[in-house]
C-alpha cells in the first residue's frame, strides 16, 4: 500500500485550518452586516463558497472520466469518483443553506428559482453517478460505465443551468436579492467572500486527496485479498 505523502498533505492541512479561521472571522465579524438583510446575508459567504468547489468537482469528473476512457488506468476512475463524492457533499451544503437563507429573505423555504432548481438537478445527476457504482459487480465494467455516465452527467450541467435560466422569464423573480452579488459593495464583504472561496477550494483539494487515497487503498486491499486467497488455496 502506498504511504500517504505527509509533506504536501500536512502543508495543505495547515493552510486549510488557517484559511478557515480567517474566513470565518471575516465572514462573521469583520464584514459589515447587509443593509437590508442584516446578519442573514452572512450565510452567503459559505453558501457561494461551496457551490464553487462543487462546480470544480464536477468538471473534474468530466476530465477524469475522459482520461479514464482514453488510458483505461483505474487511477483516473478513483480520482473522478472521489471528486464526485466531494462535489456531492458540497452540493448538499448549498442545497441545505439555500433554503435557510431563502426563508428570511424570500419568505419561503423553497422557490423554483433557476439557481435552486439547477442545483437540485445537479445534485440528482451526481447522486446517480455515485449510486451507479454500488450496483455493478464487475470492476472493469463499473469503471467504464461510471466514466461514460460521468461524461454525460457533467456535460449536462451547463445545459441544466442554461435551460432553467432561459425559461425562467415567465415566472416572477423572487423579491430581494435578485442577484447574489447585488449586496456586495463593502471591500470587507469582498474579502470575506474571497477568503471563503479560497478556504473551501483548499477544503475540496484536501477532501479529494483523502478520498482518492482511500479508494486506492481499498482497491489495493481487495487485490491483496484475492492474491492471498489464491495462495491459501495452493497451500
Amino acid at each position, binding site marked *: 500500500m502506498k504511504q500517504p505523502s505527509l509533506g504536501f498533505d500536512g502543508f495543505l492541512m495547515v493552510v486549510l485550518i488557517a484559511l478557515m479561521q480567517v474566513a470565518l472571522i471575516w465572514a462573521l465579524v469583520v464584514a459589515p452586516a447587509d443593509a437590508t438583510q442584516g446578519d442573514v446575508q452572512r*450565510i452567503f459567504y*459559505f453558501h457561494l463558497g*461551496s457551490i464553487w468547489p462543487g462546480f470544480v468537482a464536477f468538471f473534474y469528473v468530466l476530465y477524469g472520466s475522459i482520461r479514464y476512457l482514453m488510458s483505461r488506468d483505474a487511477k483516473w476512475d478513483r480520482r473522478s469518483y472521489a471528486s464526485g463524492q466531494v462535489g456531492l*457533499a458540497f452540493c448538499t451544503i448549498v442545497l441545505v443553506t439555500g433554503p435557510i*437563507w431563502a426563508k428570511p429573505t424570500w419568505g419561503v423555504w423553497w422557490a423554483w428559482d433557476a439557481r435552486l432548481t439547477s442545483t437540485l438537478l445537479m445534485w440528482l445527476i451526481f447522486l446517480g453517478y455515485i449510486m451507479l457504482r454500488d450496483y455493478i459487480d464487475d470492476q472493469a465494467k463499473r469503471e467504464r460505465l461510471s466514466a461514460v455516465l460521468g461524461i454525460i452527467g457533467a456535460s449536462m450541467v451547463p445545459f441544466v443551468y442554461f435551460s432553467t435560466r432561459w425559461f425562467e422569464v415567465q415566472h416572477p423573480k423572487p423579491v430581494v436579492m435578485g442577484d447574489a452579488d447585488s449586496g456586495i459593495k463593502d471591500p470587507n464583504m469582498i474579502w470575506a467572500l474571497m477568503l471563503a472561496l479560497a478556504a473551501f477550494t483548499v477544503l475540496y483539494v484536501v*477532501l479529494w486527496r483523502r478520498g482518492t487515497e482511500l479508494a486506492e487503498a*481499498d482497491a489495493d486491499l481487495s487485490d491483496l485479498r484475492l492474491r*492471498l486467497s489464491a495462495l491459501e488455496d495452493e*497451500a
Partner: protein
Amino acid sequence: MNGLGYLTAAYSAVWLILAYFITSLLLKNRRLLRELSQIEQRVKTLENR
C-alpha cells in the same frame, strides 16, 4: 427566529454535513485498516504452515 438564528442554523448545517462526510471517510479508513490487519494475520498463518 431572528437573523442570527438563521445564520447559526446555516453554519451548523455546513459543519454537520462536512462532519458527516469526514466521519464517513474516517470510518472507511478504519474498515480498511481492520482488513489490512486481517490480511496480515492470514499471511502469518500461511507462513507458519
